[in-house]
Each structure stands twice: as C-alpha cells, then as structure tokens.
C-alpha cells in the first residue's frame, strides 16, 4: 500500500471575503520531510498553514492530512501540532498550568519531554505566561507543540522573534525530535537562509499560488544557472524554461529550469544555490513549476475513474 502523504492539497482555493488568498494550490508532502514554506509577506503562507491544521476550510479543493480531513477529526487533531505566528497562550496560566492543559487535551502528551525542555531552557514553571519574556513565551509555545508528540508539526514563522542562539536551539530540538519520531515538519519563513540547512523539501508560495514544490535535491538538480552571450537565449531548447533572466549588454545571466543543462557549450553552467532559485521565482511571480500530486478520483458515481498523470506543468494557466 502506498504510504499516505502527510499533507495533500488538491486544487485548494481560499478567499478572505472577496480577496483571493490562495488559488488552485496543489501539493503533496511525503511523511518524514522537513518542509520549508517560503514566500513573501502576504503570499498566503499563514492561510495555507491554517488550512492544513483545520482552522480554516478551503472554499475549493481538498485538504487531506494523513488521508483525512483536518479540523473536526479527533484522530487527526491528536497527530497534528500547530504553532501560530503570534504564539498564543493563556496569559493567566502559569507555565506548569499550560503544560497541564497540554496533558489534559492530548492523548499522546509527554510530560518528560516538556519537563526536560523547560528545565534545560531554565523557564520557571510557576511563573504566569504573561510575565515571561517574548523569547521564553515562544519557547513555552514550542514546547507545548513538541510535547504533544505529533506526527505532523506545523509552525508559522517559529523563529521570527528569537535571537540566533535560540533559533539554533529550536531548530536542533526540532531536528532531534524529527530524527527520533519520524514526524513531518512544515515551517514557514520569509528568510531562505534559515531553512536551507534544515529543510529537505521546499514549497514556494507566491501571490497565492504554489510556484515551486519538491525535495531540495530535486529542485537544485532541476535548475541551472547559465551565463553567456545574450544571442543564445532564443536558441535554448524547448525542453526547458527560463525562470528569470538578467541582461547586461551582450551578456545574459539566467536561471533555466530543465532536467539537463543546455547542450550549447558556449553557456557557462553552474548549479544554483537554493537561495538563488527562490529569489528568481520571487522575481518572476508568474513562473511556476508544479509537481502535481497524482490523484485517482471518482468524479461522480457511474463515471470511470480518471487518472491525472504527474505533469511538470510549465506554466500557470
């Protein structure tokens, strides 16, 4: 039996009132991946994460977490942890009471994990959450999510208000937990460098659409940084796409997406850094490389199942 994807989105659309936040988003995240969700501010990252954890329901399309609809399903609620961007906690609860809340509301809760982490970070258990520093609050919220021992951990900008040392701590704790339990992590950020060393899967969201999604190695292998005479651009093979190009006089530098580099030896080819790839896509919001999840769908009773083949779709629509 094929392993169910941790996260599966098919044709998801969502509107905030009249403003479309997400359009036709499809992606599939295999279990065990550490996914970096990247995108500029306002690209719809938070909306996408809220859809994953069931705080929002899609207007169109379907969201499946381990094959089931998130939000109302207790079996999924127990397996998914979420850390919202502003790390909401009850201010009047002490740290210990916050952990007690976690224990009461989650069947897989680990007291040891919570106690160990809070002890190591030196966070006083009897202090009300509202009297903690911002960084400590974040750590309490992250601990609450970790001690739930989820199969999928969704974090919205978890590192935003932590200093570099704490960032490192949080990431290494996350990685240790991932290695130990095989959990899937989805974390959003607008800082690419932050994710490059820790993530093995990338989802790039631009203006409400998934522009790029895939394992980092695949993404790297599928893109080539070319530099050479501008006159050669028109002669590039059809099997690839120019994601972004810059031209200085007769010289062109471009990011080219294709399985293999162009045959013309006059191009100087280099494997681009993930940061460069992300930047190129951000500069070209209309470009997209969508790996479509393969879906066998019964359209309506009586019709034959239709199989959508996996396509590396070149263009948006």
């Amino acid at each position, binding site marked *: 039996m*094929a392993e*169910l*994807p941790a996260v*599966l989105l*098919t044709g998801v659309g969502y509107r905030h009132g009249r403003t479309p936040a997400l359009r036709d988003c499809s992606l599939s995240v295999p279990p065990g991946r550490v996914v970096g969700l990247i995108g500029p501010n306002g690209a719809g990252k938070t909306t996408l994460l*809220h859809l994953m*954890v*069931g*705080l929002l*329901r899609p207007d169109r399309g*379907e969201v*499946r977490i381990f*094959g089931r609809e998130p939000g*109302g399903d*207790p079996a999924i*609620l*127990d397996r*998914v*942890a*979420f850390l*919202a961007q*502003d790390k*909401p*906690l*009850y*201010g*009047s*609860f002490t740290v210990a*009471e916050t952990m*007690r*809340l*976690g224990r*009461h*509301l*989650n*069947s*897989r809760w680990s007291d040891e994990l919570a106690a160990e982490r809070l002890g190591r970070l030196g966070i006083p258990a009897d202090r009300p959450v509202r009297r903690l520093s911002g960084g400590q609050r974040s750590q309490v*919220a992250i601990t*609450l999510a970790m001690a*739930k021992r989820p199969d999928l951990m969704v974090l919205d900008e978890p590192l935003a208000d932590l200093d570099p040392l704490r960032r490192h701590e949080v990431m290494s704790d996350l990685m240790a937990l991932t290695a130990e339990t095989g959990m899937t992590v989805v974390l959003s950020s607008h800082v690419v460098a932050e994710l490059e060393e820790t993530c093995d899967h990338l989802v790039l969201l631009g203006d409400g659409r998934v522009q790029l999604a895939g394992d980092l190695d695949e993404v790297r292998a599928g893109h080539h940084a070319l530099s050479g005479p501008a006159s050669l651009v028109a002669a590039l093979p059809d099997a690839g796409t120019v994601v972004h190009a810059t031209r200085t006089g007769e010289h062109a530098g471009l990011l080219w997406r294709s399985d293999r580099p162009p045959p013309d030896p006059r191009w100087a080819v280099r494997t681009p850094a993930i940061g460069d790839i992300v930047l190129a896509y951000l500069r070209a919001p209309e470009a997209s490389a969508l790996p479509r*999840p*393969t*879906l*066998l*769908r*019964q*359209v*309506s*009773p009586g019709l034959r199942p239709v*199989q959508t*083949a*996996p396509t590396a779709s070149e263009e948006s629509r």
Partner: protein
Amino acid sequence: MTWVAWRQARSAGYGLLAVTLGFTALALLERTEELSGMTRSLSIYLSLFVGVLLGAPLLAQEFEHGTYRMVWTQGVTRVRWLAGRCAVALTITLAGTAVVHGAVIALAEGGRGRPALLPAPVDGLDTAGLSPYARAVWMLALGLLAGAVLRRTVGAVAVTAGGWMATQLLFDNGLPRWVPDGWQDDFWAVQLGASGLLLGLTALAVVGTLFALGLRPALPVRRPAVTLVRPTPIRPD
C-alpha cells in the same frame, strides 16, 4: 477538559462569587432592617453579571487574544471543548443563581412570616420559580453568541447588557400587557411560560453560536472517493 474549563472560568467564577456574597449579605441585612423587598428586586441583576462576567468573555477572549488557534489545535474537538467550557459555566451560573434565590426566599423573606415560595405575583414574575434560572442561562447563552459573532469582548459585553435590558422590558411591560386579564390567577402558568420562552431563546443562541464557530452539524454528504496512486518508477536494469 474539565480542569481546563474550570481554570479558564476561575476568575469570572470568583467575580460571580463576590456578587453572590453581596446578595447574601444584603439578604441578611434585610432580615433585621426594613428594606421593603430590596434583595428580591435587586436579584434580577444577577443574570446581568452572569452574562457580562461569564458569558460574553468566554469566546470573545479566545478570539481577541488569538488563543482559539492554540486550543482548537489540541487533541480535543471544538465541540467537546465548547461543551466542556459551557458545562462549567452553566454549573457556576446555576449554583450562583440558586444561592441568591435561596438567600431571597430563606434569609430576606423567610423570617417575616410571608409565604416563602409565593411572593406577591406582580413583582414575583421574574424573581420566583424557574425565572431566575432561565434568565441566567439565557444571559450566559446570549453572551456566548455575542462573543462568537463579534469576537470582541467589549462588543459582546455591550450586546449582552442590551439583551438583559430587553429581557427586563419584556418582563416589566410586555408580559403583563400581552397575557389576558386575570393572569395573576394563573401566576405559575404564566411564569412557567415566560421561563420556557427564555429557554427557547437560549436554545436558539446555542445553535447560533455553533453556526458562528463553523460547527454546523455535518449532514451526511456523499463524498467522491479519493485514492492516491503512486506512479511506479521505471528503473533501467
């Protein structure tokens, strides 16, 4: 869930306890001083405190502080979470109302040879029998609904207070006018009817709250089956 719900209701519970103690003290005072039924007249305000202290902030604060995003992603469904919180709030409400009601009957009026359970009908309509309980529960539900819809504590408190005044108007002016003459003879029937009306409104408010939270009871809809197929990798060998 019960512990969490109680922990969250604790400060509002203490506030209501203070109000209850105030009423009890007033009732004790009325035993010795001539206060002309002040405790009974003032006891109508208990439901206002219930709505404003307990009902309105219950959901509004979750939205205002964004904590619903934390608590709704724990391992308990929203329905169960709401049920737990409502159960605790309802227990506090009924206990507080019972104490004040008891204080009115037993302490304030009990010592004066008046019929303890049957007050003068005209001012007893909203303070006797089931009325205090129905009103308190209705105010709690209205507070919940206002919080779920407005998502702001101040707004929810204002709406709840407005609802309390409207209810009072109904009891003071509406009911005596609408029911047929001689209703005093059927005091308990009218009284029960009024309580029933409030409990009906309560049920509506609860349904409205569920809708506002996106918890409408799921109708069985035939969903198309979705099966995932993994493409077989072609290996050269």
